[in-house]
Each structure stands twice: as C-alpha cells, then as structure tokens.
C-alpha cells in the first residue's frame, strides 16, 4: 500500500497531469516542455496558495 503525504500526492498529480497537458496541448517539443512546466507550477503553486488560505481561515 502506498500512503503519500498530501503534498507528495499533489506533486505526483501535478507531474503526471502536466506531462499529458504539455504533450497534447502544444505542437512543438520546445513549447510542450514550456507548457508542461507552466502547468506544473500552476498546479503546485495554487495548491500551496489555497493551503495557506485555508490555514488562515481555520484560525
């Protein structure tokens, strides 16, 4: 059984989803990599931002 932490799960989700988005949404390899990296940063960044937001709301 695999029991990752919440953040590890976010990183894995972002990695796999960004890879598929990058390959399918852009046409050239260079643009695929750039778009994949952009999606990864947005996934992880928004998760961190929302986490802090919920932390302060809960206090």
């Amino acid at each position, binding site marked *: 059984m695999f029991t990752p932490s919440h953040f590890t799960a976010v990183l894995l989700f972002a990695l*796999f989803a960004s890879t598929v988005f990058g390959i399918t949404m852009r046409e050239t390899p260079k643009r695929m990599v750039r778009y994949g990296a952009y999606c990864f940063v947005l996934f992880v960044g928004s998760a961190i931002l929302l986490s802090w937001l919920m932390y302060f709301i809960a206090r």
Partner: protein
Amino acid sequence: MAEPQNTSAAAVNSTPQGFVYLPLIVGWLVPGAGHFLMRKWGRGALLAVSILGMFVLGLAMQGKVYAHSGDILDMLGLVGDLGTGLLYIVSRALGLGADAVQVTTADYGTRFIVVAGLLNVVAAVDAHNLRTGRKPL
C-alpha cells in the same frame, strides 16, 4: 490567383486515407498506443508512463474503481474510470479497487484513477488529431 488552387491541391493530398478513428480507439484502449501507431514513440511513452503511473498509484493508494450503481456521483466516476479503456476492464476482472475505503489517501487514489481515465481520453483525441492532420506531425 494560383494560390487557392495550390491550397486545395494540398488539402486533397493531405486527406487522410483509411480508418481515421483507429488511433483514437487504440489510444483509448491502451494508453499511449495511439501515438505509437502514429510513430510518435517518445510522446507515446511519456503518455503511457504518466497515465499508467497515475492509475497504478491510484490503486496502490487503495483508490476505488467505480462500478455501475444508481448514484449520480458514482455514475460520473464510472464515466471517468471508463476512460482508461482496457485498464478498467482488467482491474474490474481482477477485483482491484473494490475494497472499502479505510485510509485517508484512498480518496486521493480514487481521484488519481478517475483523472487517469480523463487524461487518457485527452491523449486518444490528440492521437486522432495527429491522424486527421488537425495537429501537425
């Protein structure tokens, strides 16, 4: 005035021959296989690793594989799971993902499995677009 003729001639030459839905169907059944069919080995391998990895990790997290039920949310989950094609059929046949949820990460696992199915549909449509010429090879 010669340009429109050249454009139409190019369009006729680039009209796909044969069964254009084959990469779509094969890509849906086996993650990445649609791109392999279009000889996009690197892209197909990355898609296969990503989708298979997500599906397997979802199962390893004790995620649930949806079966037919009357609940509307379960039906939506089933639609997402069906996107994984043969992986769904095999996992159902082996009884994987059927255990009751016992750990917190199981909910993440269930989402991983559903999203793997949805991403596989996106990948299969991309293979279809490569086949029809809507996306350049």
